[in-house]
């Protein structure tokens, strides 16, 4: 009885938790920002899976599909975003997983943001962004 009601709850009443893959592509070891964001997203009620350092774009896309996430959040502070972010988007497209919302952050010059958006990165959050902005963006974009 008890188990049934939980399942029922899960099926129709309680909305599904937003699932986020927090990823560190490339060789960059700066993980303060992404770890802080992991904590903030969890405190906002999301399920967060953190990949750890040194992930290839292939590993990130595979993990995202396996974990059935709604969002991928990538952080790069080494300047390698110009190769790594578009590569992730290319692989997602190849895997037919373009419904996953992809956002990025790190040390990313303003002039790079347009080309990242052109390949489908939905938003880029720079230094100083309050975590509440990121929470709000994810909630609004996923529910749309």
């Amino acid at each position: 009885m008890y188990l049934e009601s939980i399942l029922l709850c899960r099926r129709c009443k309680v909305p599904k938790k937003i699932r986020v893959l927090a990823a560190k592509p490339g060789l960059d070891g700066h993980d303060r920002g992404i770890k802080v964001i992991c904590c903030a997203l969890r405190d906002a009620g999301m399920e967060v899976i953190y990949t750890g350092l040194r992930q290839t774009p292939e590993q990130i896309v595979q993990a995202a599909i396996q974990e059935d996430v709604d969002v991928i959040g990538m952080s790069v502070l080494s300047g390698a975003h110009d190769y790594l972010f578009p590569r992730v988007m290319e692989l997602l497209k190849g895997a037919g997983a373009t419904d996953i919302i992809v956002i990025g952050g790190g040390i990313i010059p303003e002039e790079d943001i347009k080309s990242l958006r052109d390949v489908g990165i939905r938003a880029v959050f720079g230094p100083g962004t309050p975590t509440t902005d990121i929470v709000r963006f994810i909630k609004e974009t996923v529910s749309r």
Partner: protein
Amino acid sequence: MYDSKKLKKIEKSSVAWAEKTQKVLDKRPERKQSFQTLSGIPVERVYDPLSVHECEYVKDLGFPGSYPYTRGVQPTMYRGRFWTMRQYAGFASAEESNKRYKYLLEQGQTGLSVAFDLPTQIGYDSDHPMARGEVGKVGVAIDTLGDMEALFDGIPLDKVSTSMTINAPAAILLAMYVQTADKQGVGCKKLKGTIQNDILKEYAARGTYIFPPAPSMRLITDIFAFCSQYIPSWNTISISGYHIREAGSTAVQELAFTLANGIAYVEAALQAGLKVDDFAPRLSFFFNAHLDFFEEIAKFRAARRLWAKIMKERFGAKSPKSLMLRFHTQTAGCTLTAQQPQNNVIRVTLQALSAVLGGTQSLHTNSMDEAFSLPSEDAVQIAVRTQQVIAYESGVANTADPLGGSFYVEHLTSEIEERAQTYIDQIDEMGGAAAAIEQGYVQKEIQESAYAYQKAVEAGEQILVGLNKFQDEEVPPRNLLRVDTAVMESQVAGLKQLKAKRDNVAVATAIKKLKKSARGNDNLMPPFMEAVKCYATLGEICDTLRDVFGEYTAVSTV
């Protein structure tokens, strides 16, 4: 520092003052209910002799250049010579970075500090699949001795001191540096500089590890042993709190975790059979200069006193040089804001001043545009000028430890030392720094502080001017430095050419020898020297070690 009679008198007038102050407070309350440092140490309304009554001058402070070195490691401090002004730099190719070094030396910089790109730091050649997108980005790409020769072309290595931020493959890059000097006709004994070589903080905070802890510690003690014999003026390690702080720790944690790592290196070297006074004089440290001005100054002073005690009491070191904590400082990159970036010049000035008042041996001042990209030449120039203004104009360098005896600074120094010691005791109980890191303890402590700080900023409890108060409309900055992706292509092409040209039989023999030594217990520096000399690549050498040592997998703490 006061006798009991005088203290009584002070206590009496302190009580009277408190009563008077209460009346003022009733009319005009203070800005906040309570005040504290960034590390959470309570800050009182005022400090007086009662706050430091336990401090004994000779025992706890002493004179500059004498135990416990609270007031500095040299008797004359900056009256003799200013600190070394050393800007961390390097990007793109060796040729490009060589130009920047020459520019910095022309600007009056007195030492070099090499930034390597991430593939180099993690032991991958520029043509490795994991290197895609990273070649030349955060530092210079070095694949072989040829790149190292180009990096220092025209820079006399007997005249400059060079600091290299390299950790997991530090021994190999040091071997390349020695060979480069040799080609310039400069012998080992004349070389001055530092390799970071601090793997424990890589596992805990910075991320450029390759091998597991045990073989990594062996590489480090091999370097200690080799340098004490052949490169006596080389700083064999720079035990770094900088990155621990950047990852989000407090000042107290920065100090505690750094010294705990230092203890682990000393223990490893003793276990490898080295004598403490043979290697300890060449240990050096690297700290962060953060926002809380007095707390930072107190941290530097506490670091010296605590390390001197540890070396003397715990390890029985006799040589004064073994007891002295010498350190490099860099201003806090994590405090630079992308909002109103010119404010960063002011932040850097205050942070640099705290490092100087704290008695640093060398200093890197961050550039105002580093929240956007690697610094542009203009921004670097202001950063260097900041140090020069402090040195030549402000007068703060004219006496040793000018804040010594300040009731507040002395109180904070003792408080930080005590709190750091509590952490060190706890880490000892866990089995030492390596064990504490492998259990994820250090990482978790840092993470929790980072999140708490972020929450304080977002709640407006920690004000950052231009970020969460006094905001303005922003114009994105221009003239940012960009690393051309062509760097990777030319680096890869150069590598291919070199592999065709070099004596590949000699390379194979050197690699075979290295593998044999790695499997045994021989000091690995000689086989590294031989391998780099015949232009074996960094990747080939590191892959050989990966085969023997395996690779480190990080513990997840999120």
